[in-house]
């Protein structure tokens, strides 16, 4: 498969995922389940952009690891801060006020 073809398929996947994830926000589902779904879609989209558009596999390993930290870290934070909302509020409340 040509590199251009891969880019085109990556773009189609991103568009489908974006429209699909928009439906997540229009339902009445449980907050934690929505957070897990949103985090999963976010991670997949970030990895597609970083691999196919940003060509991160050709970057220096340290740069790749640092960007990967963001790609995996944000979705994990979305899940953690949804599931552990009260402890986070207590922790930051004690630190801030």
């Amino acid at each position, binding site marked *: 498969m040509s*590199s*251009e073809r891969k*880019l*085109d398929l*990556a*773009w189609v996947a*991103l*568009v489908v995922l*974006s*429209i699909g*994830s*928009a439906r*997540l*926000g*229009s339902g009445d589902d449980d*907050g934690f389940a*929505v*957070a897990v779904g*949103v985090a999963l*879609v*976010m991670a997949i*989209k*970030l990895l597609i*952009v*970083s691999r*196919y*558009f*940003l060509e991160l596999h050709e*970057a220096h390993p340290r*740069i790749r690891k*640092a*960007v990967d930290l*963001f*790609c995996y870290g*944000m979705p994990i*934070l*979305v899940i953690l*801060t*949804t599931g552990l*909302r*009260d402890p*986070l*509020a207590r922790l*930051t*409340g004690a630190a*801030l006020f």
Partner: protein
Amino acid sequence: MWVGIFCELTEFALLFAVYFVARAHNPEAFSAGPARLSLLAGTGYTLMLLTSGWCVARALHAMRKGERRKTLQWMGAAFVFGLGYPGIKIFELQRNFANGLDGSAGVFIVTYYYLTFTHLVHVFWGLLGMLWVMVRTGLGVYTPEDHGGLEAFACYWHVTDMLWLMIFPLFYLLG
């Protein structure tokens, strides 16, 4: 180039920390928040930026093959789709202000403006950079062997795109 990009990522990491702490302290406001915003506008931003990023990636591939005319065409398309972002922003702001969603509309809206306006500034820098790269491409400055400026711009634009992919679900989807 990567130093600048990591400065950008650090800036947004701090803003995301503000978002998570504000959300933990105001669960009701953030739960009701997405319904106050236009999901259509949020999805529109996402599609515009993703499509613009795809065009930039295609432009870079065309440059590597020495197809300068194709590179310019892809960059032109990337610029048009990139302009869609501030274009949608104008309509969304008009809708928001008509619905009373200004700076006094609560912590969710303030956090939303704080993060999305910062991102908008980065998109503006990107659009200016895109014009600069297009001019240099048109002048024949870049070659298949030496087009570091185009690559640097592409990296910046894709990272700005990735930041939006993080911001979009935080405000438009998560309850």
